[in-house]
């Protein structure tokens, strides 16, 4: 070992297997990633607040543009998939591989249903004339006061969230395959679960701030 004083101090801090957050390095890094990813959505939501406040006309009534009951169904699906994911993590920790796999599969089904609903919602709005740069001329959305700011906020917020759901699904499918082969340790399921719950968490903010408030 190097006997130089400052080197010894550094090694004592970083080289001794210390866990500053009382968690494994995998979990610590996952949390740091989640914080950075949350800040991406935080920036997007601030951008949405900016667009909404800068909008020259009154902000459109969301109940006239969307079916809020349908959005509520999407929320229900995502919350349910989070509960099944939590159950998968616990089952994996308890060593119950079959139950863990079943719950990961339920979560995948929930995620797929959510993405399908989102694809339907996007298709519906695009057919009504919504584009990233605003509604096209003659679009019925114009009658509801839909502006370019509105469509930009909608496509960017739900698009970024949807892409996270999609990547979460890819992670879950890999986790399911590896779990069925007995190759995923409990911690692997837990990391996938953390990411999935994060996706659910972001939806709570988008659902409230974009669709309800």
């Amino acid at each position, binding site marked *: 070992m190097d006997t130089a004083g400052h080197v010894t101090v550094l090694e004592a801090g970083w080289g001794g297997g210390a866990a500053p957050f009382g*968690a494994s390095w995998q979990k610590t890094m996952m949390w740091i990633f989640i*914080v950075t990813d949350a800040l991406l959505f935080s920036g997007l939501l*601030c951008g949405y607040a900016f667009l909404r406040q*800068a909008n020259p006309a009154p902000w459109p009534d969301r109940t006239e543009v969307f079916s*809020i009951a349908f959005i509520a169904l999407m929320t229900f699906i995502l919350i349910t998939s*989070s*509960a099944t994911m939590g159950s998968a993590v616990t089952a994996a920790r308890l060593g119950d591989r079959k139950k863990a796999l079943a719950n990961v599969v339920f979560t995948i089904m929930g995620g797929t249903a959510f993405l399908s609903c989102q694809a339907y919602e996007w298709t519906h709005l695009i057919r009504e004339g919504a584009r990233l740069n605003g509604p096209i001329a003659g679009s019925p959305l114009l009658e509801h006061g839909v502006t370019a700011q509105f469509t930009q906020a909608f496509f960017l917020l739900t698009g970024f969230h949807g892409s996270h759901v999609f990547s979460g699904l890819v992670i879950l499918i890999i986790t399911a395959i590896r779990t069925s082969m007995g190759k995923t340790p409990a911690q692997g399921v837990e990391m996938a679960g953390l990411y999935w719950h994060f996706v659910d*968490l972001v939806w709570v903010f988008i659902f409230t701030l974009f669709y309800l408030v």
Partner: protein
Amino acid sequence: MSDTAHGRSPYKIYWITWAILLVITVSMLAAEAFHLPRIFTVLFLLAFMMVKAAMIGGNFMHLRFERRNLTWMVAAGILVTSLILYTFITPESWNVRVKSQGPPPDSITVGERR
């Protein structure tokens, strides 16, 4: 290993959280029906949004059971940075709105008289 260590199902917490989240979501959807002043509805929705976020973070993501410094790093890191972002970005939107609408009609009239 038994699912019912300590006599309680370890899965129960997820389904209780799920039920509470569902009730909160329905309450948020019903809030509009009460025709409260807009400010109360918005405050109600924002408060319940934070409760839902805390329940997902605490129970689903197990932050309640992690070491305090990890919980604080996550919660304070996200909330404080978001607040800073919001505080410094959004006020400018009022200026953009005013500029996009042009000067108030009175000032145009005054200008024309000159």
